Structures are given as C-alpha cells and as structure tokens.
C-alpha cells in the first residue's frame, strides 16, 4: 500500500474543503482499502468521513431519504424499506457477504469500482485505471463483461445491485461540493465509458455524496430483485433484474424495469416498460416484453450468453412478482 496522510474532518463543510485531486473519502472501506492494497487506488490523503452526520432513514413527506453513511445491512433490515420498497431490501440482501454488508455504506456502494479483472490487476493495461493504456478485456477474457453501453475503450460492468434497484425507482443522489449542494438523477449520475472510461460519474472534484433520495412510489410495494450468479451467495451478478409493476385488475398500467450485470452502468429498460404497459400480466406478455431488452446488445467473444440470460432473468422476476399479488 502506498503511504497517505490520514485526516478526520469534523463537518461536511470541512470534508469538502479538504477534498481535492489525490484525496479519497473513506467510509466502510470495503472498496477503498481493498484497492489501495492492490495499488489500483493510490490517494495521497484519506479523509475518514465516518463521524459526519450523514446517517438515518427518513420517510417524512413520502418517499425515502437515506443518509450516505448508513450501512447496507441496516438499510436492508429497516421495516420501512422492506414494506415500501422490497426491491431495495432484496438487492441489498443479495449483495456481498454479511460482514461486508455490515461495513459498507450506501454512498460507497454506489461508488464502488468495477470487478473487471484487468482493472484490478496493475500489471495489465486498463483505460479506466490508466487512461490511454488500452483495454485487454475487449480481445481477452470477457465472460462477465458488458453487452450494453460498451465502447472500444472499455466493457467493464458496474457491480452494484443497489444501484440497479435505485435506477428502477428513479432515485436521486444529493451531492455536496465547495460551491454548494445539488441533486442529480442516479440514472444520469453514471457516465458511459466512451473514450474516457476513467470518468465514471458526474462527481466534481471534492464532491461528496451526502444522501440518496427515493421518490414516493406507492405501487413499488410490488417490486422484486432477481440476481443470477456463478455461486449462490457472495458473488457479483452475471445478470440481475429490478422490476416493479402496478396492476389494474389483470392489466399492467405502470412498470419499472432495470437490469444489472449487462451494462457499463445500471441499465434502465424503458422499452420493456412500454411493452408491458396496457397488456395483461401473463407469461406471454413478459416474454414478448423481455425480447425487446436485447435490442442494441453487442456481445463480445465470451459473453454471448448474456442477452438470452437477461431475457430469462426479466421473465423470472416478473413471474416472481405475481406471487406477491
């Protein structure tokens, strides 16, 4: 691990004032400490933000506000989350391991780095880690890589399950910078790789994620998260789906659909949503709607299974949702 100066800012203002290029905020540490050991991340200053007052869940006025330093396991266990947004609780439950869920913060979860093996291995080139050095994944091992949103520079997937569920729910992130606070749709927060895969999100230098805001969506009580992976537990998604459906009798009147493991960022599928709305909630409808999900997918050598897996994951998620009717 490279050496760094360790600082404990006392307030959000202080944290943001001290932050800048070369610094890193430390919350749960499950990404940062890991990547500092691998020397994939080499900050010269680490700002421990764990004592900042960015905790708590708030449901006053409808919707849900989650402090960025809330831990994954605590949010997953909160009865208000489980009741109003099952998709969020399930996405958190299916993430990582018990120890890591206890440690990792919500803000850190959204900012965790890709699991691409080349990104994590400093002996290989990687455009995300070292801009302009090349992408060995595109012509190399790419079984777990993205089929949506990839460029000639990068095909790394975004690893967060929580972010997939939040994108389906139209969540926003609240950011605090030196010039003040702003709110950004999580969907727009993540950037496509293009020629600049090292730029992953719309976060200005020194800006801090302070809160996640989930709008009120009463019919999200019928929502679910399905995750498909190589192991049954403690593994990242090859494919995942976050779905919510509002029914009027047997007819779907509103739907929210997003997938993980497929895209270079959490991927909202509005075409699938449109294909569901106005139709009867049957397996035929789900299969036909899921078929629209694969439009625009561009498989690489080892991940040609992914579009089909995405369709099946979506159909399974929609069928599982019927059980909660």
């Amino acid at each position, binding site marked *: *691990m*490279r*050496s*760094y*100066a*360790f600082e404990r800012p006392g307030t959000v203002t202080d944290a943001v004032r001290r932050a800048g290029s070369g610094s890193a905020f*430390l919350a749960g*540490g*499950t990404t940062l*400490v*890991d990547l*500092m*050991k691998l020397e994939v991340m080499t900050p010269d200053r*680490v700002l*421990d933000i*764990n004592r900042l007052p960015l905790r708590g869940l708030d449901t006053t006025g409808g919707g849900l506000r989650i402090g960025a330093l809330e831990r994954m396991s605590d949010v997953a266990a909160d009865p208000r989350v489980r009741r109003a947004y099952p998709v969020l609780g399930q996405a958190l439950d299916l993430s*990582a*391991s*018990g*120890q*890591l869920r*206890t*440690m990792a913060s919500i803000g850190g979860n959204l900012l965790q780095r890709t699991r691409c093996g080349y990104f994590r291995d400093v002996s290989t080139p990687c455009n995300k880690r070292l801009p302009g050095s090349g992408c060995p994944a595109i012509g190399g091992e790419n079984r777990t890589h993205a089929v949506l949103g990839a460029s000639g520079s990068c095909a790394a997937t975004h690893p967060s399950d929580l972010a997939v569920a939040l994108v389906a729910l139209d969540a926003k992130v609240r950011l605090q910078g030196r010039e003040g606070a702003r709110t950004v749709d999580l969907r727009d927060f993540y950037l496509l790789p293009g020629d600049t895969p090292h730029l992953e999100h719309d976060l200005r230098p020194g800006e801090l994620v302070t809160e996640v805001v989930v709008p009120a969506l009463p019919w999200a009580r019928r929502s679910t998260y399905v995750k498909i992976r190589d192991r*049954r*537990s*403690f593994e990242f998604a090859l494919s995942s789906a976050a779905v919510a459906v509002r029914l009027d009798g047997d007819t779907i009147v509103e739907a929210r659909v997003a997938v993980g493991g497929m895209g270079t960022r959490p991927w909202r599928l509005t075409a699938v949503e449109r294909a569901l709305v106005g139709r009867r909630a049957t397996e035929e409808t789900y299969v036909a709607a899921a078929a629209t999900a694969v439009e625009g997918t561009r498989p690489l050598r080892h991940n040609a299974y992914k579009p089909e897996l995405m369709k099946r994951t979506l159909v399974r998620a929609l069928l599982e949702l019927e059980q909660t009717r």
Partner: protein
Amino acid sequence: MTQHEGITRRGLLGMVGTAAAAATVPLGGGSAAAQPDTGEVTVRMTVNGTATSLTADPRVTLLDAVRERLGLTGTKKGCDRGQCGACTVHVDGRRVVSCLTLLATLDGASVTTIEGLADGDRPHPLQRAFVDQDGLQCGFCTPGQIMSAAAVIAEGRARTDDEIREQMSGNICRCSAYPGILAAIRQARTEMR
C-alpha cells in the same frame, strides 16, 4: 489446545511472532520503509474489555494491529482482501473483516476478538458446539467462523438452515467442514437463547 507443562501452542507461537515482528517488520507492509513519512495516528480503543492505546502508520489494518501489536493471533490472515472471512472480529458488537478495517478509524471503538469470546475458562457456546459437531478440520477459518456466527445468532439471523448458509457465506472453509459448521451454529443457537 493441549497444554504441556504450562506452554501452549498459541503462547509459544505468539512469543515467536512478536519477536519477529519487532525485529523486522514495519507495520503497514513490506514496501513501507522506502516511502515518505506521513504521520502516525494514535487510537484509543477497548480490546476484549481492556483499554488500549496504539500509535501506528495510518495504513495499518485492525488485523495486523491485533496480531502483531497486541499478540492476539487467534484472528487469522487468510486472503487479506475481505473475501475469506478468517479475520472476522466484532467492532462495537458488529461483525467486520479486520483486514479491510483501518486501525486509524477506530478511535473510541470496542473490539472483540476470538480471545475475548470465552467467559474466563468457560468456552463460549459456539466454541463448544464447533468441537461437539466437528465444525472444523484444519481449524484455520474457525476463529472467523465463530466470530461471524456469534454475530449472526445475536442478530437473530440464524432462523433456518438456508438463512445460516446465506449469512455465513462470507466465511470460507477450504476443508469444507460446512455441514459441521451448520450443525454447530444450530446447536449454539439453541443454547444462546
């Protein structure tokens, strides 16, 4: 843990380990010596009920601190990347992997390691249950398994076999003693009620 004339395996290895650490290893990793000094951090915390103050490089993990500075070698270093769970301890009653926990973040914290779980000479119900149910073969992962299981039971998340398996998936056992581990947690769950 057979005793021979007052010398335990843990005690002997602990002494050797401490001596070696003092003689050669700068805490924080092999490449630390050549790098610029960026200031040590002092942390006051409670470890297994005893107040402790440590001053260390900010890169030092809780894992290295308990093993090499405090001589508590029950906590094991497996992968050192948060993937195996062998280093699981409790911080303020919550289970964490100590390899990804920086000591510098723990000022004011209360830490419990496997050495702090027993009640004096009386083993914790989980320690007895792992013996009763053959919940180990080589034993390397066992301290982490037991610390993790203690938190899982305390949180009430050991209600079914499936729930135990899911909650314990962050603790790898390469001898694959999983059936015994599951049986041990079931046994201790009943006794800890």
